[in-house]
């Protein structure tokens, strides 16, 4: 951590715990490529890949799909957790159809 300096043993343990969770996260851009194959039980288009196996050429950004998982889907998936860690991920997206560009990837 850069802005908070742990000063006692309990604070050090909290810092270690936070650091250890960083390694749990597999994001789309990491190697080896993690390729999500879509969501079979909803009408959302799901996570898709373009012809090149990436997300750059999609007509809608992957983040747009993730937004549906984030707010409306009951299934626990690898999307920003709006209860504990990323409650504000969609705060700049008042209307998804219009503001989807302001949804960003989470970098833990």
């Amino acid at each position, binding site marked *: 951590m850069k*802005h*908070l300096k742990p*000063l*006692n043993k309990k604070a050090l343990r909290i810092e270690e715990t*936070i650091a250890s969770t960083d390694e749990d996260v597999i994001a789309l851009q990491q190697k080896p490529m993690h390729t999500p194959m879509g969501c079979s039980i909803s009408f959302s288009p799901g996570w898709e890949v373009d012809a090149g196996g990436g997300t750059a050429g999609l007509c809608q950004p992957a983040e747009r799909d993730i937004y*549906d998982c984030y707010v409306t889907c009951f299934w626990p998936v690898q999307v920003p957790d709006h209860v504990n860690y990323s409650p*504000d991920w969609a705060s700049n997206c008042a209307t998804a159809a219009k503001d989807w560009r302001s949804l960003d990837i989470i970098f833990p």
Partner: protein
Amino acid sequence: MTTVLAPKYRRGDIHLFDAQGEGFVYLASAGAIFALDEGAARVMALLGERNMAYGEMVQALIEADYSRADAEDLIRELRAVRGIVSDEIREAPLAPPAPPEDYPLQALVLNVTNQCNLACTYCYEFGADKIATPAGKPKYMTLETAKTSVDFLLKSSGDREVPHITFFGGETLMNFKLLRDVVLYANEASAAVGKRMTYSLTTNATLLTDEIIQFLSDQAVGVTVSMDGPPDLQDKRRVYKSGKGSYAVMEPRLRKLIAGHKTRAITARVTLTEGVTDVIRIYRHLKDDLGFHEVGFAPVTDSGEQTYTLDSDGMDTVVSAFHELAAEWLAFALRGEMHGFSNVSETISELIQGTNKSHPCGAGLGLVGVSPSGDLSPCHRFTDADTHVLGHVTTGLDKEKRTDFLTRGHVGAKYECSSCWARPLCAGGCHHEAFVRYGDTGHANLHYCDWIREWTDTCLKIYGTVAARNPEFLERFAARKGLS
């Protein structure tokens, strides 16, 4: 269908404090201490005025010359440690979990006698607010009961390699012969099972002899002396049954003890009462004139209506003197020297660990008291009180009664504590004091709340200052406390 989430952030369950012009945060849910950089302190200050949305916090930091990435990092860190929390999150109320079924014992307090050669007027065992019911019970512990107690401790101490016995009374030294036999027995019995027993005792020092002092030193028995100060203060309430003060009798013996006991620190434990509030003069006398290694102070335990009760004026006098000694403690620490004011030292050692207590002390958990009859109680203060018996050394702990005591005393069961930032160290305060004051061991000691918060804040500021200017001292200090 989309739902727009626009949470705002507020300060978490924290206490903010400043030291050396820097900002710090104490996390009440964990007992952790973090130093805040300028930006983090700025966010905390802003949230002190009103709750803010994420975008607003980022914008405020950008206006203070932070890059967007840095501002987002900062907020993420504060959120990760729960220094700030979304106002959409409601923490579940603290609920006392079931106490551990089989918690290994660390210490026994053996009340080797309930008799005393003094008659201190404020005594919780014999005074006006006593809860003990000693009628018809043995006055002195027998060797058989003591040996059974040692065996009980060894059997119940699980993997703990260095269990501890504290000898207590009454006046402990009125049964010195037993104490000596117990130490010799426990040394052998613990060695036989691969453990090492350690010892301490509390005494009024009036019955010390050369032989006793030699024994205590040889066996490394830690000694705490109950003493209230120089002659005029000591003799005010620490008196014989005739009313005669005890200073003149104890003083020469005490000097011999401090000179002759080479293996453990000798500490004084002062009880503050009406008229016995000159903490500075008491400290100087005990530390500088008599040579105690450490001196700790505590207000008398009472129902609040006794002639010796420390009233709020008396408490104010005490608190301002505490601050004076605390400043001295800090000056010593910055020079790398140990100061003898236990009330700061104890708090600092807990802050180093980040202690976050489920219960105010180990009573009924890692520690139990044994009365002369062999009855078990949560601690020495409940000795011989019929209503607080937790079993017997021959039959072990009564699990049902122990569970009731621990569930009642859990900090989560004390409603007032749930919103208090000082609960990690206090956890509601002494079970015995709560019983005497409110008739329930599980009641928070509300008459001390303001004082505890003020004192914890003072010690946090000392901690922050030492961490900033002489951090190595804290490491040395932590090691020292670990050994004692």
